[in-house]
């Protein structure tokens, strides 16, 4: 990379190591890889050891320290992509381009590989080409792509419809149905300060702990608490408590409070944050601003998953407009001291970075390894400063609460799950897309709405969530029954639930950060066992092994990824046992590798093909 270009990038990121990931991402985008020369230049410019730079770069799937081809094509490999035939499409493209999957073509032109779910499940199969998402793949699109690559047409000049991403909103409720006017929630809150008697008296009791003159922030906190808002990122933590803990955390000199919006949306089958950021970005940013006002933060980040890089310009545009309209910046809507601004950080292919402490590490420009907790982010988050991390939808809901009041909000949904939930519906149904329902909607109602037929199972909340079988379809989507981060993948009776679980296990093995022993090794062992069953080498022995690994992962892992890596296997074993029993091809232990295949290289080298050169009768087969 020429010095001028690099200087430019460095300047935009204040030449700070905390922006290392962003700097590396920009180099990757500009050059197609991160060359040793670029690393050397960074080493000098940032005064960080190159091993650290390489350590960070190699952590993220979309950054490359080796040339990866001028066209880097990654097929999304969620189970819904598989159901849409991504494997055949990928094989076809490889064939057309004369490429082996996972390898760069000899002329350095292209490489083709797999990547975790790209969040396009409602319009898949999908792929990424040099970071740009291509949706609705079919045979014809693959042929055209092969041609475009062979003709070396720059991705920017590819047909625009390839990159078309639809919102596919199928059912709107309070949030998606809100005609939100930018600034309206901030103004509504401000207007309510002196008039809302009930809340004002409520605030007095707990306001004591706060610095004087904070009636506005206290009111916002109170509204959110009164609304019973719970996080939409999966765990369902009470948002008001989180904000309050951050607000009350002591600040050292020179420290600020930080608001982070988690738009990593890495859980396969989830794509509602994509739509919120596409069509409701003002609500999300306004929610962040309200949060900042409530906790006393002046800096905010949106952590956008690398797969949604295509939204960056649009989001920067919204931020710029909000700055112009005094909805960001200094003295927001004229409230003295209400200062807040938002920066966008883009991820680079690491599901674990959705875990809030790993996300913070990543924001700091490091490898996305989950931290040891306590201390929690609310007291020691971004650069050790008090930080709240919330999901995109949580912030949008907070804006809605500021607009309409906590009392209004708490009366929607169920007693422990206030408000609505946006579900990302995909898989075997007529109308995939977003469905917003008040909490408490049953699985059956959602299936009815999306036009699902002959449904065998639904995976709620993604691979780390729950496999729901037909006899449970009257169960409800809410924190007291089936909590969810939003994914709702439908499988009809033609699907093999073992393959569903196996796909999920592959996902976890691919996304394990490698920090802790049980998950680093355990997810790979689990993957190998599922593959062993798949390859027809399974026996009851392997079944016991799977159960053992499940236990170790759950009990010993460092973070939620490892803890839930076995969920899909546990659930499918419990509810779809037949799919596993069908794979117990052997009664006795059978090797994971094919014995005859293990002689292949020797056969090839010796040219032998006699009976003893194979495993069979002559050698005494296993059983």
């Amino acid at each position: 990379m020429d010095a001028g270009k690099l200087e430019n990038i460095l300047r935009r990121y204040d030449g700070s190591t905390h922006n290392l990931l962003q700097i590396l991402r920009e180099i990757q985008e500009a050059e197609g890889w991160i060359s040793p020369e670029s690393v050397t230049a960074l080493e000098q410019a940032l005064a960080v050891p190159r091993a650290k730079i390489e350590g960070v770069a190699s952590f993220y799937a979309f950054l490359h320290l080796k040339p990866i081809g001028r066209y880097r094509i990654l097929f999304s490999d969620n189970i819904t992509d598989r159901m849409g035939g991504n494997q055949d499409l990928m094989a076809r493209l490889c064939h057309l381009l004369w490429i082996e999957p996972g390898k760069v073509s000899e002329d350095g032109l292209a490489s083709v590989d797999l990547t975790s779910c790209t969040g396009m499940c409602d319009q898949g199969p999908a792929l990424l080409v040099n970071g740009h998402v291509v949706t609705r793949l079919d045979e014809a699109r693959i042929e055209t792509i092969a041609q475009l690559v062979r003709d070396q047409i720059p991705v920017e000049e590819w047909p625009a419809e390839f990159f078309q991403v639809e919102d596919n909103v199928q059912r709107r409720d309070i949030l998606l149905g809100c005609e939100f006017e930018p600034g309206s929630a901030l103004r509504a809150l401000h207007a309510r300060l002196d008039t809302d008697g009930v809340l004002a008296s409520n605030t007095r009791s707990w306001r004591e702990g706060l610095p004087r003159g904070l009636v506005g922030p206290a009111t916002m906190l109170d509204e959110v608490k009164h609304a019973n808002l719970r996080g939409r990122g999966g765990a369902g933590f009470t948002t008001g408590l989180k904000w309050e803990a951050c607000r009350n955390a002591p600040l050292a000199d020179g420290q600020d409070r930080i608001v982070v919006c988690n738009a990593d949306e890495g859980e396969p089958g989830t794509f509602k944050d994509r739509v919120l950021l596409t069509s409701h970005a003002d609500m999300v940013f306004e929610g962040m601003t309200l949060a900042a006002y409530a906790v006393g933060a002046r800096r905010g980040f949106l952590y956008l998953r690398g797969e949604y890089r295509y939204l960056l310009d649009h989001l920067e545009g919204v931020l710029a407009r909000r700055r112009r309209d005094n909805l960001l910046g200094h003295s927001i809507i004229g409230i003295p001291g209400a200062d807040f601004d938002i920066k966008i950080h883009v991820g680079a292919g690491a599901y674990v970075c959705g875990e809030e402490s790993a996300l913070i590490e990543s924001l700091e420009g490091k490898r996305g390894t989950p931290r040891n907790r306590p201390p929690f982010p609310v007291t020691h988050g971004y650069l050790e400063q008090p930080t709240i991390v919330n999901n995109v939808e949580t912030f949008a809901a907070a804006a809605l609460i500021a607009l309409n009041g906590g009392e209004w909000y708490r009366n929607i949904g169920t007693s422990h799950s206030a408000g609505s939930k946006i579900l990302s519906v995909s898989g075997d149904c007529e109308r995939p897309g977003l469905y917003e329902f008040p909490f408490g909607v049953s699985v059956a109602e959602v299936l009815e709405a999306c036009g699902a037929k002959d449904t065998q199972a639904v995976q709620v909340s993604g691979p780390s969530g729950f496999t729901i079988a037909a006899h449970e379809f009257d169960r409800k989507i809410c924190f007291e029954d089936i909590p969810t981060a939003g994914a709702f993948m439908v499988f009809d009776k033609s699907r093999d639930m073992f393959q569903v679980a196996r796909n999920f296990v592959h996902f976890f093995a691919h996304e394990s950060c490698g920090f802790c022993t049980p998950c680093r090794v355990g997810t790979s062992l689990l993957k190998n066992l599922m593959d062993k069953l798949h390859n027809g080498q399974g026996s009851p022995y392997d079944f016991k092994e799977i159960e053992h690994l499940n236990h170790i992962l759950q009990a010993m892992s460092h973070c939620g990824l490892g803890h839930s890596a076995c969920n899909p296997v546990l659930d499918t074993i419990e509810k779809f046992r037949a799919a596993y029993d069908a794979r117990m091809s052997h009664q006795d232990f059978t090797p994971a590798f094919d014995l005859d295949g293990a002689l292949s290289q020797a056969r090839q080298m010796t040219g032998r093909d006699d009976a003893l050169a194979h495993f069979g009768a002559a050698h005494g087969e296993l059983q």
Partner: protein
Amino acid sequence: MEVVEKKKLKVATTSLAGCFGCHMSFLDIDERLFDLVELVEFDRSPLTDIKEVGKCDIGIIEGGLCNAENVHVLLEFRRQCKVLIAMGACAVNGGLPAQRNHLPLAEILSEVYLSSPGLGNGMIPNDPELPLPLNQVHPIHEVVKVDVFIPGCPPSGDAIWKVLTDLLSGQGPSLGHGLLHYD
């Protein structure tokens, strides 16, 4: 007399891709071997010269799996023996031979027979009598279910004795500090 004979446990042993070190160690149980012979009767073993393994109570395997022949013998042992013991580092984790596993076999064969002077007259032996090497060396538990492991390179006579006597007395075999070692 016959009754006593029948009570003896039948034991078979073999060395696959091993160095006979473990068998030497086995003999190291010294005079206790006499006690052992009171309790057991040897079937196929380098100690007896019986070539085919018959129905046995205990099968003891030294060495890992390098070639087709090793696998063949191991499968035979697994079929015939009630309790299968992996004896020594090579049987337990592949040992020294497994250190070739990061190299493709094709590369090794051509290095040995085609590139280095003085061996195989520029040709990889293809005599059907010779067992073909496996792509990778495997410890035996990756191919059959193994019931008992005695690690060590070689395990000491004491360790082998302890495991066998534990087994003969119907206990789960264990090795404490000093007896349990991997080197």
